[in-house]
């Protein structure tokens, strides 16, 4: 009997667990460790943040699903990784600490034959002074944060209904944030909601971001065919902001969030401030901070994890200038170069470098997005890694499956207003995710497969995807027919 241990039950970890369990014989074990008791369809959190959905509609308890599918579940957080075992313990293991009510703090040693690190990010609010829902700004990163943001929005709307003018600032709360898409969705859902509640004329909406230009989304933007031209997503995005009357600040690193005032530094070195009555700023992400130790108890974290605490996999991490970046730098199998039974997928793997061009203030402060690796690509890499591990556990000598983001396309639906009759969403497809300027010298991507348009159809699709992915994650009949 062999055991696959999966750290994390987000989109990547849960996908890997369900696929591995259905493929593996009953003589093998799949164990999932997650500090959360509920699964969260994170793309719908933005609708919780404007009050059109509740946290219960975007989450469900994990334990019944794992009980049904035969996955062993531990509600706990990983504390330390021991890939060589330790004195008196010959097998590799992970030390976990329970987060289950009544057992909180109890430690357990979970041995493994194969390990998938799918812990997702640590929401690094501490990187910016005053940032975060426990301090001076709101977030939509979790369903709970989003519910808190909805309350804040209700209060701002009430003030506007009393005739007060309000400034609403939405965007990224640090110079190295990722997931601009989620903040973008929240911005336009707030704008739509203000119109629906009849107070749009009382609101000044401002976007603040570490992107070099609008439409970057951490992917260096993209080129699409539009109205007989090949045009950059910057044009498309600026058009939407202009149409909806949203001001924007780009090339900005938020340095400090005071109650009602946000301080930021710009790429040209200026120190600026803006007053805000409602502030939703996403935090930067880092790895969860798992420590690793060798058999003798000597810390080996640096050989397994990048300084950002994301795990090294089979990418090329050689430091090189932007001009020398290559699609082949990106990992294909997501296997640790040091241990061939350890993998990292989703946000947990260390990207070899950004996708957007790195920019620095003369003082050295970085202002550029880190690469997005959530949603569809995250699910695909988790599935492929799970299948490779299943082959190894079953003793099959199959061809190794790969899921390089440089050879993978992605579809993304970004909501811009939730209503089945009047809502809109931006529907985007990109291929490949990582631009390849050798193969596509002018655009970096295949223009036939890269597209973007806004309309009600996008909202219908996003709404359907919400129910489809909740259904799939619950492992209901024919769940495998729904693609990642």
């Amino acid at each position, binding site marked *: 009997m062999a055991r696959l241990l999966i750290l994390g039950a987000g989109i990547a970890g849960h996908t890997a667990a369900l696929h591995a369990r259905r493929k593996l014989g009953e003589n093998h074990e799949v164990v999932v460790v997650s500090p959360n008791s509920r699964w969260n369809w994170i793309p719908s959190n933005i609708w919780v943040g404007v009050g059109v959905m509740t946290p219960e509609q975007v989450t469900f308890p994990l334990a019944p699903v794992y009980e049904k599918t035969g996955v062993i579940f531990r509600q706990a957080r990983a504390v330390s990784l021991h890939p060589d075992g330790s004195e008196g313990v010959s097998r590799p293991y992970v030390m976990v600490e329970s987060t289950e009510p009544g057992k909180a703090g109890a430690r357990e040693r979970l041995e493994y034959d194969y390990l998938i690190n799918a812990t997702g990010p640590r929401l690094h609010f501490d990187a910016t002074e005053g940032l975060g829902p426990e301090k001076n700004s709101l977030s939509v990163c979790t369903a709970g944060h989003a519910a808190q943001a909805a309350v804040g929005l209700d209060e701002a709307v009430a003030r506007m209904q009393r005739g007060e003018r309000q400034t609403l600032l939405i965007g990224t709360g640090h110079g190295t944030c990722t997931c601009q898409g989620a903040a973008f969705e929240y911005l336009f859902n707030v704008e739509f909601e203000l119109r629906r509640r009849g107070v749009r004329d009382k609101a000044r909406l*401002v976007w603040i971001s570490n992107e070099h230009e609008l439409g970057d989304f951490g992917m260096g933007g993209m080129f699409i065919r539009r109205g007989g031209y090949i045009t950059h997503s910057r*044009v498309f995005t*600026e*058009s939407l*902001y*202009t*149409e909806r*009357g949203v*001001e*924007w*600040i*780009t*090339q*900005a690193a938020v340095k400090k969030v005071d109650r009602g005032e946000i301080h930021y530094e*710009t*790429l*040209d070195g*200026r120190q600026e401030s*803006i007053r805000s009555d409602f502030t939703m700023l996403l935090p930067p992400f880092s790895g969860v901070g798992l420590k690793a130790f060798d058999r003798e108890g000597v810390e080996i974290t640096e050989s397994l994890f990048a300084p950002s605490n994301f795990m090294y996999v089979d990418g090329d991490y050689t430091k090189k200038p932007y001009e020398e970046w290559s699609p082949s730098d990106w990992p294909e199998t997501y296997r640790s170069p040091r241990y061939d039974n350890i993998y990292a997928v989703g946000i947990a793997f260390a990207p070899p470098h950004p996708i957007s061009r790195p920019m620095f203030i003369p003082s050295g402060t970085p202002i550029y997005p880190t690469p997005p690796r959530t949603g*569809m690509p995250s699910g*695909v890499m988790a599935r*492929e890694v799970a299948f490779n591990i299943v082959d190894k556990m079953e003793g099959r000598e199959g061809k190794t499956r790969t*899921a390089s983001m440089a*050879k*993978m*396309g*992605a*579809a993304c639906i970004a909501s811009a207003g939730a209503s089945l*009759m*009047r809502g*809109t969403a931006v*529907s985007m*497809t990109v*291929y490949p995710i990582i631009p390849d300027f050798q193969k596509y010298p002018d655009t970096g991507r295949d223009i036939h*497969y890269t*597209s973007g*348009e*806004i*309309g*009600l*159809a*996008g909202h*219908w*699709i996003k709404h359907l995807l919400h129910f489809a992915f909740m259904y799939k994650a619950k492992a209901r009949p024919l769940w495998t027919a729904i*693609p*990642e």
Partner: protein
Amino acid sequence: MSTVRKPFEQSYYPPVPTPLTKALRTNWVWQFLRFLVINVRMLRMVRMH
């Protein structure tokens, strides 16, 4: 530049949609057709891996 730019400042002119373009974005018949087209595009992405 990294300043707050208001729509239609003299220094910058992003394109804005015409009333017809905006109307088509929420026109049920047109959007049903776009729904089919976008789904085909997304399925092509899915089939690539």
